[in-house]
């Protein structure tokens, strides 16, 4: 469960990115965050997995108040959260396999198990034949799918996806959304930030709309 209480985020330089955000995403919920470019979607997700700290307010993830969390506890909280980054954040000097395996390596899973899980995950996003490529050798959409695979491979309790289909064609977009729905059915809380109106209208899910750092409407 994700709870935000009167959260503000001001970056050092520049105006407020988020202002007075209060919201609650239940365990197992599927929510879209939308809004125009620069509205604060990515910032909101960044707060949720502790990439940024709020300027003001309280954030509670899975029962932990993350503004009070000890530094050393951060990695363990993050292991329950899979993240698809808007800019992919892949390691270009590792193979596709290694990139996806990363989330499993850090929790000390045995090699054999990692191999099996990564292969299955890559197959789900249609990249099993590019296993040993560097992400540098992949197209934009392929890189995005590697990023998605990495976020999902350790079956996290929460999935945060930032513009996960920006580089995907319609067929792949549907495939990826199907994937998200599947993990959602298995109990994972899913939060997807997107500017794609057609995507949102195709799925009748909760939509949180941001504009200039404020929540506009809830549904």
């Amino acid at each position, binding site marked *: 469960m994700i709870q935000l209480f009167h959260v503000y985020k001001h970056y050092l330089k520049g105006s407020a990115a988020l202002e007075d955000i209060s919201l609650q995403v239940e365990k197992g919920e599927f929510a879209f965050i939308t809004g125009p470019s620069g509205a604060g979607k990515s910032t909101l997700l960044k707060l949720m997995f502790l990439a940024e700290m709020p300027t003001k307010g309280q954030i509670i993830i899975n029962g932990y108040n993350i503004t009070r969390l000890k530094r050393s506890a951060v990695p363990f909280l993050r292991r329950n959260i899979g993240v698809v*980054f808007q800019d992919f954040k892949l*390691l270009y000097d590792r193979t596709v396999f290694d990139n996806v395996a*990363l989330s499993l390596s850090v929790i000390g899973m045995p090699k054999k198990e990692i191999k099996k899980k990564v292969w299955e995950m890559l197959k789900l996003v249609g990249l099993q034949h590019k296993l040993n490529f560097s992400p540098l050798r992949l197209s934009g959409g392929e890189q995005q799918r590697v990023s998605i695979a990495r976020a999902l491979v350790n079956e996290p309790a929460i999935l945060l996806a930032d513009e996960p289909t920006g580089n995907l064609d319609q067929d792949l977009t549907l495939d990826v959304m199907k994937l998200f729905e599947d993990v959602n059915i298995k109990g994972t809380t899913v939060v997807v930030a997107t500017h794609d109106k057609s995507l949102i209208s195709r799925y009748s899910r909760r939509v949180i709309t941001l504009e200039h750092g404020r929540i506009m409407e809830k549904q």
Partner: protein
Amino acid sequence: MLIIKRISYFMTTMAKGIASNLYLNVVTIITIAVAFLILNIFFVIYRNVNAVLEGWQGRIKIIAYLQDGVSSQQVSAIEGQLKKYGNIKGVRFYSKQDALSEFRRELKGQAAILSGVSQNILPAYLVVMVRDRVIRNGTVGKLADSLRGIQGIADVQYGQGVTERFSEMLVMVKMLGIGIGGFILFAILIIVSNTIRMSIFSRKDEIEILKLVGATNMFIELPFLLEGVTQVLCGTGLSIALLYLVYRFFLYRLHHAFGSLIVNAHIVFLSGGTIGTILVAAAMLGFVGAFVSAGKFIRHND
């Protein structure tokens, strides 16, 4: 424990890190090797200069000229008295006859000037060998003066001025040695910590991403620490190999050519124990360098 269980992961991650930054790693290792080699060559020079000085120092002695006509009993008495001095290593008696042959030996080749010198004109004397600490303390003069009061001794000579200079020179060489050696060591530390920092710096994306997927600091740091240790070990190993070549093809030959002139002690290669100590120290240096750098980029960057 996780760390132990995943040892192969850390080793392969380190190996991948080195491979992906091969150029940087090779340069780092060469730089470390060069720096250590400079230190070692300097060390050899220092040891030899020191050896020369210590050799000279061994030749410093006090000569006590005896009064004419002292009997051999009196000589024994004086010798016995001198041997009680804590600062005196040994005493040797030269009779008038000995004195003349010594004098002849010293002036060998200039036979012409010796024609008029007979046994009678030279006094008998005692050569007093002093302990090293006296020379290092610069108190040879004091010791000599105290001998002057002994019954039967006419005059005392000890190369006034020269002994003091030797002590000063020894101190100076030691100071210079420590100063320059320390300086080079400091330079090596800067270079090592710099290169390890570069290595971490060039992988800061990787560090960021590892943090985002939930890696602990320890997990991120370990391969870097291993890399730092490996780098410095390789660099040091290389420098020892290079040093051996320098020793084998330069110093060793030099020693055989001019050895007796410059060094009293043999120039020997580092002993196994010394090499071991150096490698352990190097590993620690790499670890500390990597740890400090890692601290800056990994731990303090949450």
